């Protein structure tokens, strides 16, 4: 049902909405259906006149841009793939695993791990769109600063994370009856930690695209992440897992590990914020405030990481 609704939503937003927006409202109101509008039905070309539209402050414009970016991210093939994989993963796991629980599905990592990985590429694609299409010079004189454009992408990633969260919650409510499970129930911190991987993947992709605006950086960054993961997991010290594992609470029959889920969430959220600030500080403009913020976030992330134990 969820998949059907999502598919319908994608079709409407991708194919119908742009055509509706492109038509003048007056003409649309007279049309019985969304048929092509004959030229004769349109109003004559607008004369050159002073426009009624006026510039607004940066923050409302940033939110408007965030809405646009959110729509584009949610409708992108990459995010659609992330959603499909998340749903398929849940269905397959439920069908094939005898003692499937929400813990093993979501908090054990596979669902949001793949979504986070795909959203890393989605974030990179969104942030590198201007470079790839050559619109940099055209957009350069626009008043909305490149830093605020990065912030708009970060806000879009929050919505992407929220969508994955809703999917996981749906799985939680519909496919796993946690009252019959002997294991520990997940807290809200456990639940939130999983979709944060989506936000983290997306914002890391944005940061990398900003830092290294070159072709081939996205796959290189991916292999870099894998390499870091492999190196840390081979240290022989399981404590490192609190810092790099995509999920920290494997369900091995004994309930959640005793590490603090709230601190783990804080740790990951601070990493996301670091990625956003890291991307913004790279762009032209005054850096002192952002550097201070970045330093505070780094210290915060370090503190939150240690506070997990």
């Amino acid at each position, binding site marked *: 049902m969820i998949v059907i609704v999502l598919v319908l939503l994608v079709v409407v937003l991708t194919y119908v909405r*742009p055509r509706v927006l*492109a038509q003048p409202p007056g003409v649309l109101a007279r049309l019985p259906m969304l048929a092509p509008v004959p030229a004769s039905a349109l109003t004559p070309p607008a004369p050159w006149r002073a426009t009624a*539209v006026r510039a*607004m402050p940066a923050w409302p414009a940033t939110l408007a841009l965030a809405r646009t970016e959110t729509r584009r991210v949610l409708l992108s093939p990459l995010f659609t793939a992330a959603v499909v994989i998340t749903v398929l993963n849940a269905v397959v796991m439920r069908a094939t695993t005898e003692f499937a629980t929400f813990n093993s599905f979501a908090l054990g990592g596979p669902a949001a791990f793949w979504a986070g990985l795909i959203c890393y590429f989605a974030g990179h694609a969104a942030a590198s769109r201007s470079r790839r299409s050559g619109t940099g010079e055209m957009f350069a*004189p626009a008043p909305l600063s490149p830093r605020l454009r990065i912030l708009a992408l970060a806000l879009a990633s929050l919505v992407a994370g929220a969508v994955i969260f809703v999917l996981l919650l749906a799985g939680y409510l519909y496919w796993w009856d946690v009252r019959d499970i002997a294991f520990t129930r997940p807290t809200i911190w456990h639940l939130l930690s999983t979709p944060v991987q989506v936000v983290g993947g997306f914002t890391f992709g944005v940061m990398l695209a900003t830092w290294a605006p070159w072709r081939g950086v996205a796959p290189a960054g991916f292999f870099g992440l894998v390499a870091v993961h492999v190196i840390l997991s081979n240290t022989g010290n399981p404590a490192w897992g609190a810092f790099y594992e995509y999920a920290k609470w494997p369900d091995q029959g004994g309930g959640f590990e005793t590490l603090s889920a709230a601190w783990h969430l804080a740790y990951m959220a601070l990493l996301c914020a670091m990625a956003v600030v890291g991307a913004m500080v790279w762009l032209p403009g005054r850096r002192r405030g952002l550097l201070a913020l970045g330093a505070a976030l780094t210290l915060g992330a370090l503190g939150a990481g240690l506070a997990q134990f």
Partner: protein
Amino acid sequence: MTVSVDGLVKSYGRKRALDGMTFHAGPGVTGLLGPNGAGKTTLLRILATVLAPDAGRVSLLGGDPAVAADRLEIRRRLGYLPQEPGFHQGFTAFEFVDYVAILKQFGDRRARHDEVRRVLDLVGLRDVSGTKVRRLSGGMRRRVGVAQALLGDPDLVILDEPTAGLDPEQRLRFRELLSSIGERHTVLLSTHQTEDVAALCTNVVVVDAGRARWSGVPRELTELARGRVWVAAERDPRAQLAYRTGDGTFRHLGDAPAGATLLDPTIEDGYLSLLSASVAEVAA
């Protein structure tokens, strides 16, 4: 003056693109005319606040683009079409212009969408506004670029070769559009099309080797070649410039060849007469 440039210098490594450029432009349509590599695009990029000059002074709309607060205000009143505009291929024409409108911090969504429809109407793209950019022809994409530059009725419109790739009908419509904008605002455009300058511009600046070689009204540029344009049956090797025309005769610029007939000059003759170095190169 809306645009005031004084002693502008810009280099790319050892290559000096602008070498003491000085000129002024006010309301109306000012055309920058010059050969390839003359520095027109670099000048327009600086005026669009995309590039910073190495030296010299720039005043735009009463502000100094080197000052951050002034630069923001200038950008709010500026429309810019680069020479090689890129487009987000997956966007529709409407979505793309709407995206630029957001970057220009335009107000509430309904007013912004009305404004996007208006500028798409102005460039004759209403019927294809819901079509993806990747499916538009090169000329249509150019018009999408022009549309985004006209968003918000900007006080200063900077267009780098805006008529490149437009068909004759669209070029006429475009000239009419820019003329009407130029009645109230300042339009600055670069072009290789001398007929565009003659038909459209109230002022013209001839740019060569990073400097403004000449400025004035198009009629004065044409008059520079008065009494120096001839047509003859054979090419005269002594001519400053001679080239074969469609009817098999040879058009000469310079002193009168034997048996030649004096012609009324065009703006192209005036331009070529001015750029003697370029003329010599063409003649060779």
